[in-house]
Structure formats: structure tokens, C-alpha cells
């Protein structure tokens, strides 16, 4: 059961990702990316990361993808979709990626070296969200505050960048 679910979600993720990078129309790409992100959310759920599952659905599928679709609609791309799909230096990219692929396959062939077996689960673990909150607000308070500052800067920056400039006379 677990294995079947893993392969279903993995197939969703990889097929969605492949469609994202190959489709000509950016709207189709965005919808394929939603498929891929939903598969990743399922993978999180399989690994007992319920909070990240909820964040993935709400933030990525709900927030980021709406942002992408808004921009795709805002920038009309009918003529761009008819042009070449790939950059001129794509053979260089193919060579580099083939090298990485061969390296990854070699590692897979050799197996995972030195990954010790996981410790046995401790009894009476509280829920996943409580544990994340515990770690986030005790150990990682400073990075948390830095992340909030980063988000503030990003919001202000995005609004400033995308705003229509008045022509000064």
C-alpha cells in the first residue's frame, strides 16, 4: 500500500515536472507544475510531514501558482509561444546535464554508502505540527525572524518593481 502510494505520487511529480519543462504554452506549463507540486505534497504526507503537506497545498498550489498564472495572463505571450522553445546553447546544457545524470546513475549503482539505519522511533512523540512549532520558536527563533524580515523586503520589492512608473516631466 505504502509502496503503491509512493510510486503514484512519484509518477505525478515526475510527469508533471517533465510536462512543465517541455510544454510550449506557459499556461499548460503552470498547470503541469500544479500536478507536480500536488505529487510532492503527497510525498510529504507519506513521510509523516503533515504540516509541510498543508503548507505545500496552501502556499504553493494556492499562492505561488496563482501568482504565476496572473503574470502569464498579464504578459500576453501568443507570439512568443510560436517561436523557438529552447535557447541556442542547448547542446552545451545537454552535455552538462548528461554528465550529472551519469554521475547520479553511478552513485545509484553503487548504492547509498554509509547511510546508517534510522534510530527506532521514540515513544510518545507529540504531533508533527507541535514538534515543528517547538523547534521553530525555541531553537530557530532568530532564523524565523530573519525569514519574516526577508518576506517583508520581498513584498515591498515586488510591489516597487512591478508598479507602473509615472513619466516625470
Amino acid at each position, binding site marked *: 500500500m505504502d509502496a503503491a502510494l509512493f510510486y503514484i505520487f512519484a509518477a505525478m511529480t515526475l510527469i508533471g515536472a517533465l510536462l512543465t519543462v517541455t510544454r510550449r504554452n506557459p499556461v499548460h506549463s503552470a498547470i503541469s507544475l500544479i500536478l507536480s507540486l500536488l505529487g510532492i505534497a503527497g510525498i510529504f504526507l507519506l513521510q509523516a*510531514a503533515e504540516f509541510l503537506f498543508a503548507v505545500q497545498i496552501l502556499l504553493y498550489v494556492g499562492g505561488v501558482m496563482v501568482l504565476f498564472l496572473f503574470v*502569464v495572463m498579464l504578459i500576453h505571450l501568443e507570439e512568443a509561444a510560436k517561436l523557438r522553445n529552447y535557447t541556442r546553447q542547448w547542446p552545451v546544457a545537454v552535455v552538462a546535464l548528461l554528465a550529472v545524470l551519469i554521475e547520479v546513475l553511478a552513485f545509484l549503482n553503487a548504492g547509498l554508502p554509509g547511510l546508517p539505519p534510522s534510530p527506532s522511533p521514540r515513544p510518545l512523540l507529540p504531533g508533527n505540527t507541535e514538534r515543528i512549532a517547538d*523547534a521553530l520558536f525555541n531553537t530557530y527563533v532568530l532564523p524565523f525572524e530573519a525569514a519574516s524580515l526577508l518576506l517583508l523586503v*520581498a513584498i515591498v520589492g515586488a510591489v516597487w*518593481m512591478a508598479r507602473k512608473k509615472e513619466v516625470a516631466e
Partner: protein
Amino acid sequence: MNFSPITTGHYLVLSAALLLIGSVGLLMRRNVIIMLMSIELILNAVNINLVAFSRHWQQVTGQVFAIFVITVAVAETAVGLGILIALFRNRGTVLSDEIDLLKW
């Protein structure tokens, strides 16, 4: 690699495959919007990796770092799309090889 009991290694393989697909998109597509989507794919591959090791070691730190990665990804997307809108307004294109003002 056997197929039936799902181990941490299976998640790492999935993560590596997703990373490679994302890199293909980032390096080969002309459309900057698709390149931003490929960056999302790459960051999600990293998240799968972090969560897999978090499960493996029975520790929640990996998931906390995945939250930080998601935060940075969202900030990057917002700023990137803002830049893209400004770029389209000024140059009328979102194709990466036509943005060559600094190239000689």
C-alpha cells in the same frame, strides 16, 4: 535497488530526478517564466531531500529547514515576477536570449 519496501534511498532518487528535470528547464528554456518555474522544481527537490532525512533520523530539524526553503522560494518568486513585469513593460519581451543589453 529493490522496489518494494520504500526506503530513504527511494526518496533521494526521486529528489535527484526532479533536480535534473528542473535543471533541464532552467538551462534550456527561453521563456523566463518557465525558468522561474524550473527554479521552483529544483527547490522542491531539495525539500523532498530534507524531509526524507528528517524522517530517517526521526528529527524535526529537516522539516524546519524545508519551511525556510519554502519561505525563500516564495520571496524569490514574488521578486522575480515583479522584475519580469517591469522587464516586459520596458523591453516588450520575456525571452532570455533577447535581453542582451549588457552583452557585446
